[in-house]
């Protein structure tokens, strides 16, 4: 109905993914920070996953929009 929900989902997760990835980069050098998550830089790792997911969703939405425009 008018709005393709993949746009908001894609954009939101891209932004959140970006936020987490940057956080992961910035805090990556501090081992005490990630002691709580078993030593894994979970912000960086999961941030990238979210970025990819958001990107895919957004990409799908753009493709769909182009396809509809061309019809």
């Amino acid at each position, binding site marked *: *109905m008018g*709005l393709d929900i993949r746009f908001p*989902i894609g954009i939101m997760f891209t932004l959140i993914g970006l936020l987490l990835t940057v956080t992961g980069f910035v805090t990556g050098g501090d081992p005490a*920070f*990630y002691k*709580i998550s078993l030593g*894994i830089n979970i912000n960086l790792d999961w941030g990238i*996953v979210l970025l990819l997911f958001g990107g895919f969703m957004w990409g799908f939405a753009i493709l769909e929009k182009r396809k509809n425009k061309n019809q």
Partner: protein
Amino acid sequence: MHQTAINLTFIDYSILGLYIAFVIGIGFALKRYMKTSADFFLSGRSIPAWVTGLAFLSANLGALELVGMAASGAKYGIATCHFYWVGAIPAMIFLAVFMMPFYYGSKARSVPEYLKLRFDERARAFNSISFAIMTVFASGISLNALAKLLNQLLGWEYNICLWVCSLIVLLYVLKGGLTSAIYTEVLQFFMIVLGFAPVVWLGLKDAGGWTSVKDKLAGVATDPVALNLVSDASKTFKPDAWTSAWTPLIAGPSQNPMGVDLFAMIFGLGFVLSFGYWCTNFLVVQRAMAAKDMTAARNTPLVAAVPKMLFPLLVILPGMIALALSATAGKEYRLPQAIITQARMTTTIASIKQSASGGTDLATAQENLSAKAGVSFNPAKIAALLKSPETLTASDEKLAIRLQDAVVNDYDGVILSLVKRYCPTGLLGLALTALLASFMSGMAGNVTAFNTVWTYDLYQAYIAPDRSDDHYAWMGRMVTIVGILLSIGAAYFASMWSNAMDIIQLVFGFVNAPLFATFLLGMFWSRTTATGAFIGLVSGTTASALFHACTISQGNVPGVKGGYLAKLAVLPSDMAQNFWLASFAFTVCFLLTVVISLATKRTKSDEDLKGLVYSLTPKQIVTQAWYARPEFIGIVLLIVCVYLNYLFW
């Protein structure tokens, strides 16, 4: 409860802020598409199946599910999966294949309206009134739980949490109607999965993987009293009690932590309760009815069934992981409990010493202890303390440890304790937003179901028929505001009178139990008459109440738990009582509906019932290939479901 509050940084708040901005933004973006009442209440029937499917699932997922399933995962182990694999999937498939054609194909705009078309106003009135009240209370319970959680976890003020969360939901539902609710539910679905998956993954890693979890739970099963899982010191289970879904169930109620027998599980939960919810509850059916065509509508529950089957990994596994960690030395983790404060510990120690030396009986000793400590205790451990001569001679530190160890588990705190344990700032914001998202999706679902049932089935049907569509659209908006206010009221009620809340939920259980019998007979037997249906429904509800009044489960006192009129049967556990109650109510409703229908005249001709009864409805012209048909997809899903059950037999 005095757990250490979490500190959020601006990163966490940013994630939260982004989420809130997007859900409100979606509402505003949809505002211009809300032209008619059909747009507002039914999304103009224009939504694709993948969206309605995920919304179908997400609306059902209040945070109570996230919190509650983790709690049950710790308390009952893998048997909790029955709520999904037995108690949901088959019903969802049935809805898709057999019932959606009637909901979508008839002119009904809601579930109660279907009842009116099929039977008469009496059945509709009964269903719409009970559903409207139920759904407002469900919303309130969810809201109350959320505000309490945020207060406990973050120290935010209860009232502010309540009103701010309600305002957010109000904003997006008011602007964008059902479409807004559905779209945000899809967003929230992804938020929930992506927010909790890392926590579960970290937990599994910490516990050493699934085999390690299984080993630890085997140990727990043979000594459940150590972790306060049972209140009888002599109770033990076979090692697979927490990790095997069917063997302990088949072995009988005393062999599984849930305390149910096979029949009650399959018929009571798997058939009556499960079909009763998934096939007749307008909260979920409304999402399927918003689909863009019949095929999409039928595929909606099937789309939902796929993630539903996999959800135990996300929601039940954390509970089991928590239990395994509690049983692992060196992990410094224990299932959450209410903490006895320093201030109260001294008087509590004095109390136990007094009871031990004075030879007080267990019940009185426990009462005194609880009064001093402000928490509940496991009777088995208190009994052990009273018997042990060490109690009078041991140091205060030792006694304090033993007393704290004897406090009952706060299972509802499990998922949060895992979030606190593993999440650094960043991921923390994500997990908390996921929790918030699950609450909001449940609340928005309830509010949209409420405003539709009110406007079409109560207002238009009985109060102000024959008004313009604009008027009903206006009413829909008004009642959204009213619905949210009522939810807030219900939340305050729940927070102040939790016992009264238990009673209300009990009553709703009574109403739900017989429902499916009415729908089953209505949809598949054209001879069912309106009088038969109505009397069956009312009798079924009364039968539920009577069953509850005359039975009790082991260890409970008569009262809210039942058994206050007579004690005709004692059931092994609360769950067992619940499942048997459902079975009984269904049977009564079914039999009475059949008998009275045969004894009364039909008021609707075959022509009237076209599109409402299976045998009188022309079959949908099938345009899809055989592998795309709901029947085929349904069978495939059932096979996968059976396979999952086999894997965890």
